[in-house]
């Protein structure tokens, strides 16, 4: 019989029922393929993004590096070997390694123009990544400090669509509908499909309530 101190899949599921974070831990523990890793990692990075967005008023002056470092710190807590500015054919903003050897690279840009986002996309796809089977996915993190992040993402998707990348396709991301989408094209280096998740990180913060109006007035009168 099982040692009573051995946890079973059923016990682990029960922990997850009691605490959603434990359910995510269980999912991380059971990762056993690159696809599992990517699926779990996207849940995890979304939690980091939500946390960043929740405190977006604190990040109005933050540059790309500072926000990326915050994401890296949160990923380390849950066991990912995440680094900022690692040397991978250049200095990639986010490198994430899983204990089983899987890798994901991410390029972060504070959104200003779609050309600037495309520059980040080219850095990710042609400078940093190899597109090998254990590194066949990457990400663009668009830090959006302007209003209407979903329109920015829709326009960015349309811009990318028109670039004529080889075997290009794109589709919705159901985990964060309207704020994320996927693209896939043939990677220059590996010649194999490379999938990129494009993620909006909403940082716009311009409250219009009375308290904000008074605070603004106070600043102007000074």
């Amino acid at each position, binding site marked *: *019989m*099982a*040692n*009573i*101190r*051995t*946890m*079973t*899949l*059923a*016990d*682990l*599921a029960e*922990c997850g029922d*009691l*605490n959603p*974070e*434990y359910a995510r*831990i*269980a999912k*991380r*523990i*059971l*990762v*056993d*393929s690159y696809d*599992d890793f990517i699926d779990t990692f996207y849940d995890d990075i979304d939690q980091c993004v939500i946390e960043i967005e929740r405190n977006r008023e604190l990040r109005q002056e933050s540059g790309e590096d500072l926000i990326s470092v915050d994401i890296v*710190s949160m990923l*380390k*807590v*849950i*066991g*990912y*070997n995440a680094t900022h500015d690692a040397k991978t054919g250049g200095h990639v903003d986010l490198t994430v*390694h*899983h*204990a089983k050897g899987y890798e994901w690279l991410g390029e972060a840009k504070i959104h200003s123009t779609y050309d600037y986002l495309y520059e980040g996309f080219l850095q990710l796809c042609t400078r940093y990544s190899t597109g090998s089977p254990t590194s066949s996915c990457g990400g663009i993190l668009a830090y959006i400090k302007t209003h209407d992040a979903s329109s920015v993402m829709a326009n960015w998707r349309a811009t990318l669509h028109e670039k004529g990348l080889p075997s290009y396709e794109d589709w919705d991301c159901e985990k964060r509908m309207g704020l994320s989408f996927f693209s896939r094209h043939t990677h220059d280096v590996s010649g194999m499909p490379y999938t990129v998740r494009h993620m909006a990180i909403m940082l716009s913060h311009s409250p219009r309530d009375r308290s904000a109006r008074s605070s603004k007035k106070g600043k102007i009168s000074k």
Partner: protein
Amino acid sequence: MDKHTALARVSEDLQAHPAVVRACVAIINYLDRVPIESLQRITFGTLSSVAGYKEVSDVLPAIQYLIGARVGIFETAYYFFDPNGEEIPLAASIVSSAHKDKEFFHPETGERVTGFEQRIGIEFVLARDTRGKFIAEWAGG
């Protein structure tokens, strides 16, 4: 990874989570203290009591960190507890598929096992790299 590097990473990465730091440090010190023969199979229960928790589930955040790529001290090991009392080691890929597909077939008879979730146990072993490093530290006194 050797003990000192592991402890340094724990302090650096988890500084905002002191309870998880305490649990990780207690577990790493335990691994350093007990003979390696006692570490052939490490259970959630063992790690939980080493970390001083009453509830086994409380040790989950520490375990996920210690099996993660930052330190990678442990690897998971899976067993099927056959109704006849036999323990059959399982590959991680089989457990992962069973979990996703919600079905599991007996590794020897091929019969579908109902309620398999209660019969698949998760334990830990020292990661190959860790085993070497800890043994080297002991040998060095």
